[in-house]
């Protein structure tokens, strides 16, 4: 495997020397995400060649794997030992890799109750823009030596370096899970999800769409039963429940099917924000703090950004068919300066995925 790293390092040095961009690619399942307009002269750095589990000891609750390892392989191994990636990352395709998952920083239905990708990242091995082989963090739960570079890599979309290996904290799978559904209006649903979240209940996911609130209970049987009795709703059978959350996580639910005249927006805001008066159809997750908005290409981008800001958050143009849209929420001038300075330090020649996150990075 060292020869693969040697090859990456060589490619990086060459790219830096010639100032030719490198597109870091692995499973190609999230190519739609970010500012994807490809630069004409860019070469591809294929991460799928660096794959395999490095270390896994279930009693340690830690797995270390190479970035090119398929996410499905990681999850299957954990599953054999009754464990899981608790942030339920979306795969968006069979070939999704661990590296892509961490670089994109996207989390699934369990996020509001258990945490996000970044919450579970314990350490990384990476290459910076000079091709240096670097280790940050480690395999332990608590570590405050040095700045938290590992978490900085999460969601950076490869613009700061090439992830080689990642150590993640994993969690035991809940013993029992069940999904229930309650018919309810939008305002009442937001209120209910937030009130529930303020009580010691074993709720592990929520989703509201078209006057229906779906919620999932996870834990020991007695706790799940007691909560079910208290909260009510119609129980889905086990398979229906699993398929439902799968369709939200992987965006295969009908709501997420975008035709060429559709945009899909992702608004991350305060969970108790009232219904947003925006044109289009909405679906909520994470107790109301994640709001998906499906509307048409000619929608008012500014109005959507403003709505997100008003409730303390940001909006991402998640899926679209526009050619030159800047999909991520604009940063304040102070933050732009810090972002540029960090990029300059990690990738002085500006070769890694230029423009993918922000045009200036």
């Amino acid at each position, binding site marked *: 495997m060292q020869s693969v790293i040697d090859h990456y390092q060589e490619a990086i040095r060459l790219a830096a020397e010639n100032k030719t961009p490198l597109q870091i690619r692995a499973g190609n399942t999230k190519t739609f995400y970010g500012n994807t307009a490809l630069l004409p002269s860019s070469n591809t750095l294929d991460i799928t060649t660096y794959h395999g589990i490095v270390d896994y000891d279930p009693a340690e609750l830690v797995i270390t794997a190479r970035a090119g390892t398929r996410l499905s392989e990681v999850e299957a191994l954990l599953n054999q030992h009754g464990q899981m990636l608790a942030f339920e990352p979306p795969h968006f395709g069979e070939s999704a890799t661990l590296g892509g998952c961490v670089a994109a920083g996207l989390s699934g239905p369990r996020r509001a109750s258990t945490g996000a990708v970044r919450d579970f990242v314990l350490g990384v091995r990476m290459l910076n823009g000079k091709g240096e082989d670097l280790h940050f963090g480690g*395999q332990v739960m*608590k570590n405050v030596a*040095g700045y938290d570079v590992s978490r*900085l890599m999460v969601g950076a979309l490869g613009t700061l370096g090439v992830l080689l290996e990642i150590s993640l904290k994993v969690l035991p799978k809940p013993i029992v899970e069940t999904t229930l559904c309650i018919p309810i209006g939008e305002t009442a649903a937001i209120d209910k999800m937030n009130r529930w979240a303020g009580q*010691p209940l074993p709720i592990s996911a929520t989703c509201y769409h078209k006057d229906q609130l779906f919620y999932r209970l996870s834990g*020991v049987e007695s706790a799940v039963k007691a909560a079910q009795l208290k909260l009510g709703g119609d129980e889905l059978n086990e398979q229906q429940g699993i398929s439902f959350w799968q369709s939200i996580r992987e965006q295969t639910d009908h709501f997420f099917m975008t035709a060429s005249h559709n945009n899909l927006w992702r608004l991350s805001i305060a969970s108790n924000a009232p219904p947003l008066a925006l044109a289009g159809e909405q679906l909520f997750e994470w107790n109301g703090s994640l709001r998906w908005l499906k509307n048409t290409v000619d929608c008012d981008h500014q109005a959507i950004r403003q709505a997100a800001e008003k409730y303390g958050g*940001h909006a991402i143009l998640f899926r679209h068919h526009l050619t030159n849209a800047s999909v991520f929420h604009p940063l304040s001038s102070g933050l732009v300066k810090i972002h540029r*300075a960090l990029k300059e330090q990690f990738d002085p020649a500006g070769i890694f995925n230029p423009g993918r996150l922000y045009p200036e990075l």
Partner: protein
Amino acid sequence: MSRNELIRRLQAILPAEAVLHDNEDLRPYECDGLSAYKQLPYFVVLPHNEAQVIEILKLCHATRTPVVARGAGTGLSGGALPHVSGVLLSLARLNQIVSINPQARTACVQPGVRNLAISEVAKPYGLYYAPDPSSQIACSIGGNVAENSGGVHCLKYGLTVHNILKLRVLTIAGEVLEIGGEGLDSAGYDLLALMTGSEGLLGIVTEIVVKLIPLPQKAQLVMASFEDIRKAGQAVANIIGAGIIPAGMEMMDKITIHAVEEFLQVGYDLNAEAILLCESDGNIEEVSDEIERIEMIMQQSGATRVSTSQNDLERLRFWAGRKAAFPAAGRVSPDYYCMDGTIPRKHLAKVLQGIEMLSQQYGLRCMNVFHAGDGNLHPLILYDANTPGELEKTEEFGAKILEMCISVGGTITGEHGVGIEKMDQMCTQFGSAELAVFRAIKTAFDPLELLNPGKAIPTLHRCAEMGAMHVHQGADKFAHLPRF
């Protein structure tokens, strides 16, 4: 600029009483919780609001004056140790709870607010702020952010980094940055993670939005004795291997058990080589189920005695001994030296044995009392500073322990930070390329290196100086706080 001129300029920003410059007034600020290191600051400033902090920073930036932030000064690695020609910026007066939003389960607070005060205001809403460092009645939330502090319950509920949503940060140039948001993620790089644990080197935190979580309905504690520390270590692995994440899981070795029992008489098993305290919390059903399983696993793992708290009074009594471990160490030895390494749990037995061997080799006793669930060790080396050469031996012993932590894939600090104390060990843990990246990050935020210079990140050519937390005969500055 002359010292007097600087004082005049500071006095133009702040009321006279908020600028301290007499030695007598400066004295209380000469160290933090690591009192082995002392330095009088040039001045201390005590601003009341963010606008004043901005003006102070602009002045310091323009005059190239170093700035050291200070919260409550309970840090254990010398992070808030003053700079000889720098301003010590106390955030203690920015102590307002700006707002609390029970529906969204968040609180917006200023950095000088005490950790425990947040949970106190949240309590009427059935909520609390989860990270609970033992210093929580005194330490500030700003300091917690700067150190990424943990607590006994971070095994289940996470560290500071997992429990904050948003920060207002001032750069050294006095520019305001809003990092994070009210939602669960934010645009751009994860600067929230980068700021957390940055020990006052990247910016000054002036406001924090923290997450609040529901108070558990119930908490219960299992206390188990073992005749062999390896069996206790195995019991920890067995509990976690069985899919249980306890709210807290702490271990004490024989010396510690005897020291605290002598001190507090909580009823610990004096025949045990190790005691495990394992807490479960949550809703009633979950707790009774988990406690039953924990009891069973303890038995199966060879526990010689297993008792479960029958009420909260008893639970707190079981905990009391654990929490009194540091003061108890102070009673059995004139001095002690506290380490903070973290290791993968599977190496617990090996590292504890290694510590035991070192203890014999150096002829110094060592108490082991620690966060077993997440492998965060706090060995306390007992020594007497009045015996010539013993302090040096102790430091060498301590350094060997940290090297051992690194050698099994662990880290030199789990929660107390690097500060001024572990600069040497940073050089052991990281290579020069990683250290260069840390310095590059510093440059991105603070190119003139005015924020807390000389801390946390060693320069490549200066990988020297090392120290530790030395406590000498009641000279402990925070004797009234429980210690972990």
